[in-house]
């Protein structure tokens, strides 16, 4: 092919950077996941052994790993729809012609996204406190018994979901808002002339027009939520009774608490496989509906 040499020369710097900073580390991590790299190997590299797929087998037989997978899926299944609904709801409200002070509300609702997670988590820990927290106080005012949000294994994950949704919905809201503004006004006008109510206009005009945006947002949100780590790390340290240990948190424990880097790398690849599988399913569903 003519000019191929010049083309390769132009992309070479970018390829080299991707190779060095992406493919090489990934390959090294995969190689690491086939060994039993642990603290003994940290002391002396001769103490490393090749174990093939042993780490993967051990993980799949480890109930704690499956508990972490279960916790993560619980978080995702509860958190992603809530997050998308909150984002879409906020975007629709902001897009409404009745809304006043749009710039102010847009900024206010987006603010949680750009604040530091650790700082907001500390504030949320106060909000969720059983004795001094605003949330339990508000529930007490309407006669609901206080919940020990972060101390009760049944409520810790819902509390984390609540926090994560609040923290993240602003980002998707902005994407939805951009999507809403591209929907031609004449579609709504035609629908109104045909006598469609507001609910029917939402269902038959807004949502179908937003479908590609919804697909994008749900892909991003799924991928992000499957990587749950910082929220439980700051709020609960994986507790109580390991009810908020996510897959990534489990990997952190293996890698940095016990220094089983071989095992931790294997967790990373299993998580990658899980995320790939979820994304493929989403794309397949979207394709069948003719969105993507």
């Amino acid at each position, binding site marked *: 092919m003519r000019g191929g040499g010049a083309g390769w020369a132009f992309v070479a710097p970018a390829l080299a950077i991707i190779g060095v900073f992406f493919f090489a580390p990934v390959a090294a991590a995969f190689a690491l996941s086939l060994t*039993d790299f*642990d*603290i*003994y190997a*940290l*002391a*002396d590299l*001769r*103490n490393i*052994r090749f174990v093939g797929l042993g780490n993967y087998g051990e993980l799949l037989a480890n109930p704690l790993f499956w508990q972490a997978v279960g916790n993560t899926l619980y978080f995702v299944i509860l958190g992603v729809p809530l997050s998308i609904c909150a984002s879409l709801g906020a975007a629709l409200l902001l897009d409404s012609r009745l809304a006043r002070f749009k710039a102010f509300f847009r900024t206010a609702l987006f603010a949680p996204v750009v604040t530091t997670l650790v700082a907001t988590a500390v504030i949320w820990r106060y909000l969720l406190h059983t004795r001094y927290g605003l949330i339990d106080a508000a529930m007490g005012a309407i006669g609901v018994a206080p919940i*020990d949000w972060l*101390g*009760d*294994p049944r409520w810790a994950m819902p509390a984390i979901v609540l926090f994560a949704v609040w923290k993240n919905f602003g980002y998707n809201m902005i994407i939805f808002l951009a999507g809403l503004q591209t929907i031609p006004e004449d579609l709504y006008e035609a629908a109104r002339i045909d006598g469609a109510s507001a609910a029917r206009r939402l269902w038959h005009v807004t949502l179908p027009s937003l479908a590609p945006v919804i697909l994008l947002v749900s892909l991003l949100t799924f991928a992000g939520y499957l990587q749950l780590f910082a929220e439980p790390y700051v709020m609960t*340290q994986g*507790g*109580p*009774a390991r009810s908020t240990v996510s897959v990534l948190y489990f990997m952190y424990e293996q890698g*940095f*608490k*016990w*220094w089983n880097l071989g095992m931790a790398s294997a967790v990373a690849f299993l998580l990658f496989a899980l995320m790939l599988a979820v994304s493929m399913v989403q794309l397949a569903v979207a394709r069948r509906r003719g969105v993507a």
Partner: protein
Amino acid sequence: MTPRPSRRAALGQLAAGSLAACSGAGGSREALRFWAMGREGEVAQALMPAFERANPGVRVEVQQLPWSAAHAKLLTAFAGGDLPDVCQIGNTWLAEFVALGALERLDGRVATSAVVAPGEDFPGIWATNIVSGRLYGIPWYVDTRLLFYRRDLLARAGWDAAPRTWAQWLSAMEAVKALVGAGGYAALLPLNEYEPLLTLALQQDDPLLRDGGGRGNFRGPGFRRALAFYEEIFRRDLAPPVSETQIGNLYDEFARGYFSFYVTGPWNLGEFRRRLPPARQAIWMTAPMPGPAGPGAGIAGGASLVVVRTSRRKDAAWRLIEYLSRPEVQGRFYALTGDLPPRRDAWNDAPLAGDIKAAAFLDQLGRAKPAPAVPEWERIATEMQSVAEQMVLGRLGLDAAVLEMDRRADRLLEKRRWMLARGAGAAP
């Protein structure tokens, strides 16, 4: 400058001086880096001015680590070659850092020291600093688990003194349980804590691991006796089968009489004083752990001070450890933190000498026994407790439980067995 600088220290200072000159920052004294955890880290800062006055060539930079992240941070620092000169280290972690080759041997320095006196330390605690016959740490403060109990309820149940043997403890618990009725219990042994069961197990003569620390020995008769006693307490419904997180406010429940015996550590001396109202301070007391026949052994816990092998300021580091080991400095450290001193001669002064509630600790620390010194121990103990929890919840019998514990311990120790078989010197 330094009173009697060794050539190495002098070279180090020279290098540091030129570095400081290059960067143009800091004074002429290179900082001695000292890492300490949690509350100890805060308090250590207050102890440094006196040390710096006595050692004009040394400036100490105390870095405080949160306990929850300390272990991970130390390992990461080791991997990055960034460990400090002196470090506080939980004594259950010592074997791990010795296996890494991260710590300096201290036998020689102790032999010539005028301050550090092994004979004054509790022998069980001192032993936690020895791996394969070599000394790597000096105890900083000590910790063991024993009985906190409701003196008033026990007296009403007919017991004027705390039980001293397992049999007495069982009958005392029965008597308390009969007194408080169906709504309460006699003891609290949280299912998420391995320390109560480990304490019972250490009271036996059998070791917890066999084959040079290569396999679990939970099926041995000693551990079976301990586990059977532990199970008995739950089977007779004398303790609630719950984790600590399910108790809500532990101190309120103790004051309410929901349980009368609680196996816990020295930090609760301060907590019980602070959290129970002044008028009710007479209701609680401490006692050594009952043993199979008379007061038994306890866990040798606590934290030690270590010198990092790669440090360039080992002499100054050792002087800091010596300073922190002085009885009067330990007394001040106790006053600031409530951490119990490892030297018996530091217990002779007020306020510790007159504290009848701390006296049980002094008594039991004399019988403290170290847990197995293998890097995997913490995880083995966690697995042991998770199996014991299954047993208490009725999902496993005693025989199946000890076999399962051995199976899990053997799996965790697999690498260690391989290394022992290879004859690698690194395995402690």
